[in-house]
């Protein structure tokens, strides 16, 4: 048996059937692929185009504002020191205390901001690479702390050259993609009209805490299907494994009630919300919870509606100014178009990063979660043109802002030479060498390098390794955990790797190992697996927080 499998692997490239029954695995994976790639394969062509956007090492990152607000005042300089306060080395996972934010960051914030403004005004002509790099230090991710930032006026100081270069790059790639004939037949043939549009529950909550009675308007069967359906598995975002929604347990009902309470209180207690969200957010309240956790929505209920309205308008102001003017085509609101616009505006505002493959993946969870507010049941193959203009605009703008907040926390993943990723992969190696020497030595013995498999884990936040529903669950926690997407992700990756230790140790050559690591069989994973993974990650974090020297040299 083993020999046969091995032979198959030798001859047949990816030994997928080994772990992933073709019928199930391929389908799910295909759907994921469709989402990830359809039209979002938004590459910067080879050398020529990419060149002007290269930049050297980035400044130290600023943290998302909500954390700043929540954590300011605590003065621990290092992650490690803080843990000395904690009794015992291993902490329970749920209801975790959140590590405080590094205060240096809040201090720097003001300084950097003024500095950057000066710099961006100074921009003239970049004659050398370094000059260019200096001049285009990303000015646009800084003023992210409160609602007043990203004002149109500050945006206009953006170096127009950079903006033009980015725009040119992006549009070039788009037109290339658009011109391409559809090489594959549309697979979406007969789709029954089981889609329903419901009133956004968070909007409902915003205006009044009426809650449970959502308006449901059945929709007609869509006239035109998108060429490539790209939204997968939405029906199963939170309902692991099962096809229908399982009945709510008492515990789940209590949790949902707790969330509703928190969300509707005059000033939502964000600390408490994070605590509650760490073990997963009920899907009914996920959209509004995510908006709050990301720092996009203010804690004060009275200000929410206005803020949303203003931010949405602001986003479409960018679109008008930077996208429409270069894009004569009539607006089409297909998934692809929406994603394109979001990524375009992000790229133009972040010239130090530009667009990196992988960023497109990061829009998806937000988009799907915000879409789920309006669309009941299966969103796969859902034709977005069935939604009203208002709904679409809200989903698009909210996805943009929340994605921006997320990317702010991991921007050095995507700047020149991707230093953030390099560092994290190194840290992962270091960590694994401490927590599981056997696995580590196994890799060394067969000359497997961590970069060979973990690069993608970092670059795409494990999104390519997990079903979308799992990513969404994972992000509940990442958004509740300080530096979730950056620091905590490292421990999740370590836990994820060790999860497969038996399979890893069973492989006895380079090839088998790499094939395994590139195709880890997670297709049936659900909330339970992610919960265990997060628990283990949390344990690791605290284990090493107490003994930093185990981890950092």
């Amino acid at each position: 048996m083993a020999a046969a499998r091995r032979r198959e692997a030798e001859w047949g490239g990816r030994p997928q059937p080994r772990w992933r029954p073709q019928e199930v695995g391929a389908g799910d994976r295909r759907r994921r692929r469709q989402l990830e790639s359809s039209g979002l394969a938004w590459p910067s062509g080879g050398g020529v185009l990419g060149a002007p956007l290269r930049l050297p090492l980035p400044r130290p990152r600023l943290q998302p504002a909500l954390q700043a607000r929540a954590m300011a005042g605590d003065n621990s300089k290092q992650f490690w020191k803080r843990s000395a306060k904690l009794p015992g080395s291993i902490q329970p996972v749920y209801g975790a205390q959140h590590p405080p934010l590094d205060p240096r960051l809040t201090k720097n914030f003001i300084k950097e901001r003024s500095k950057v403004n000066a710099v961006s005004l100074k921009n003239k002509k970049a004659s050398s690479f370094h000059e260019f790099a200096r001049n285009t230090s990303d000015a646009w991710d800084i003023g992210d702390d409160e609602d007043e930032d990203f004002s149109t006026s500050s945006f206009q100081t953006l170096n127009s050259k950079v903006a033009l270069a980015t725009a040119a790059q992006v549009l070039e790639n788009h037109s290339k993609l658009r011109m391409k004939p559809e090489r594959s037949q549309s697979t979406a043939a007969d789709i029954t009209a089981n889609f329903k549009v419901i009133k956004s529950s968070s909007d409902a909550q915003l205006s009044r805490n009426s809650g449970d009675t959502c308006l449901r308007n059945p929709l007609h069967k869509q006239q035109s299907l998108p060429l490539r359906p790209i939204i997968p598995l939405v029906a199963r975002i939170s309902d692991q494994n099962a096809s229908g929604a399982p009945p709510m347990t008492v515990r789940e009902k209590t949790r949902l009630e707790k969330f509703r309470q928190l969300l509707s209180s005059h000033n939502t207690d964000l600390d408490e919300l994070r605590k509650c969200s760490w073990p997963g957010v009920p899907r009914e309240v996920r959209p509004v919870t995510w908006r709050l956790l990301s720092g996009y929505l203010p804690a004060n209920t009275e200000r929410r509606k206005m803020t949303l309205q203003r931010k949405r308008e602001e986003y479409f102001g960018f679109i008008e100014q930077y996208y429409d003017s270069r894009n004569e085509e009539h607006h089409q609101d297909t998934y692809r178009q929406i994603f394109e616009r979001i990524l375009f505006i992000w790229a133009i505002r972040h010239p130090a990063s530009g667009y990196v493959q992988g960023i497109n993946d990061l829009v998806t969870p937000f988009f799907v979660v915000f879409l789920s507010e309006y669309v009941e049941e299966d969103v796969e193959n859902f034709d977005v043109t069935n939604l009203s203009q208002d709904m679409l605009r809200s989903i698009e703008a909210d996805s943009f802002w929340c994605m921006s907040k997320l990317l702010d926390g991991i921007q050095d993943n995507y700047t020149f030479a991707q230093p953030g990723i390099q560092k994290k992969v190194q840290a992962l190696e270091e960590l694994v060498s401490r927590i599981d020497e056997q696995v580590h030595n196994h890799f060394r013995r067969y000359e497997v390098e961590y970069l060979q498999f973990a690069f993608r884990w970092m670059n795409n936040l494990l999104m390519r390794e997990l079903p979308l529903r799992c990513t969404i669950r994972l992000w509940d926690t990442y958004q509740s955990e300080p530096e979730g997407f950056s620091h905590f992700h490292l421990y999740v990756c370590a836990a994820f790797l060790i999860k497969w230790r038996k399979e890893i140790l069973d492989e006895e050559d380079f090839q088998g190992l790499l094939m395994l690591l590139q195709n880890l069989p997670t297709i049936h994973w659900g909330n339970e697996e992610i919960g265990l993974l997060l628990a283990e990650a949390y344990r690791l974090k605290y284990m090493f927080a107490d003994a930093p020297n185990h981890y950092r040299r």
Partner: protein
Amino acid sequence: MEAIWLYQFRLIVIGDSTVGKSCLIRRFTEGRFPQVSDPTVGVDFFSRLVEIEPGKRIKLQIWDTAGQERFRSITRAYYRNSVGGLLLFDITNRRSFQNVHEWLEETKVHVQPYQIVFVLVGHKCDLDTQRQVTRHEAEKVAAGYGMKYIETSARDAINVEKAFTDLTREIYELVKRGEITIQEGWEGVKSGFVPNVVHSSEEVVKSDRRCLC
């Protein structure tokens, strides 16, 4: 049981984004054309055995690289340990052809002190009506660099097998002639398993005995 192979060659596939590198490799290793394909992030690994002559198998380990400029710092680490490479461009995308030179420059810097045998591949030849690069000019460029040129289509499975096996044969010949040698600390070429050798030496002994009879 291990499959028996004479040599293991490591190959690398490079070229601009969206020229079809991953699809070509997957057609070759999995025998099918993926309807949709993730943009490659960093580097992916594939493998297949090829038979270049009856009974002579070569194990190919193939690195599929991301075409996007931003990943260059990752992908360039893989040149050094490759003995062969497919340099792809898309025949319907002139720019990807113009960048061929740049790709070669890039490899030259990072492959040292070793060498890579490249073949130039004009991909998506099923889209002949949208062709922006003629076969003639591509052949001329290839010849200028001392490479072979081949046109392929992953979608219609044209020349996919040939592109890989021709390159494999070319490398095999160089190895046979001693122009490429197996070196400690270099993954480009590795020699196959000993059982093969033992087996043949036993045969030799047997036949010797027979001759004595």
